């Protein structure tokens, strides 16, 4: 099993996930991790609410990871996506790609993120710091463009 996929409410532990993926192996040369965090530059955001489609979320992320493993010759891939209420500064998503050489690891992690953004069934709603009703975050054209490039 080369792909570890989890959809969970609780936070994840970057170091533990990397260690689990590398344990007992000496054939991995490069590990790239991507952590996506809840960001609030202007101080206007109280939290994001992450809604997801249970079942399909796991299935879709697994499919993306398997495709990345095959396409870039990854030795292992991990993707963990949180749901529920997430405050600024907290983790939302973790992707890890391991490969013999660095470019495959970079490309694998980048590919998984680009497809996860546009294909994994998650939706973000803002909770505003002033208590007013927040908006659903809009999908970005840039994300579709990023996916098209592969």
């Amino acid at each position: 099993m080369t792909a570890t996929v989890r959809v969970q409410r609780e936070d994840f532990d970057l170091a533990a996930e990397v260690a689990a993926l590398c344990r007992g192996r000496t054939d991995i040369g490069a590990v790239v991790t991507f952590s996506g965090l809840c960001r609030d530059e202007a101080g206007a955001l109280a939290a994001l609410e992450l809604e997801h489609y249970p079942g399909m979320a796991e299935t879709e992320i697994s499919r993306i990871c398997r495709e990345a493993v095959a396409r870039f010759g990854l030795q292992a891939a991990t993707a963990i996506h949180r749901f529920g209420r997430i405050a600024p500064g907290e983790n939302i998503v973790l992707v890890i790609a391991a490969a013999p050489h660095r470019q495959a690891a970079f490309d694998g992690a980048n590919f998984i993120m680009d497809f996860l953004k546009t294909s994994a069934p998650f939706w973000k709603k803002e909770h505003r710091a002033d208590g007013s009703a927040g908006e659903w975050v809009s999908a970005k054209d840039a994300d579709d463009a990023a996916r098209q490039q592969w």
Partner: protein
Amino acid sequence: MSTVNLVYFSWVRERIGKGEETLELPADVVTIADLLAHLKSLGEEYEAAFEHERVIRAAINQEHVEHGEPIAGAREIAFFPPMTGG
């Protein structure tokens, strides 16, 4: 008539006012596009949810599909806006 489970997410769910329901579908509802047209005939909450039909994404049995996809054999059909995870 066939019976299908429908699930809604994000602002599609909010506008319709529920996250899931089970519907009996007339025999002339063949594709996802047919189903969207049928749902829009059921009330203004559905009209509001599917007002901009082209942005609505659909999944049959938890797999992404286009609007032209036949729904025959579907156990679960989902409608939702473009995804914003990651």
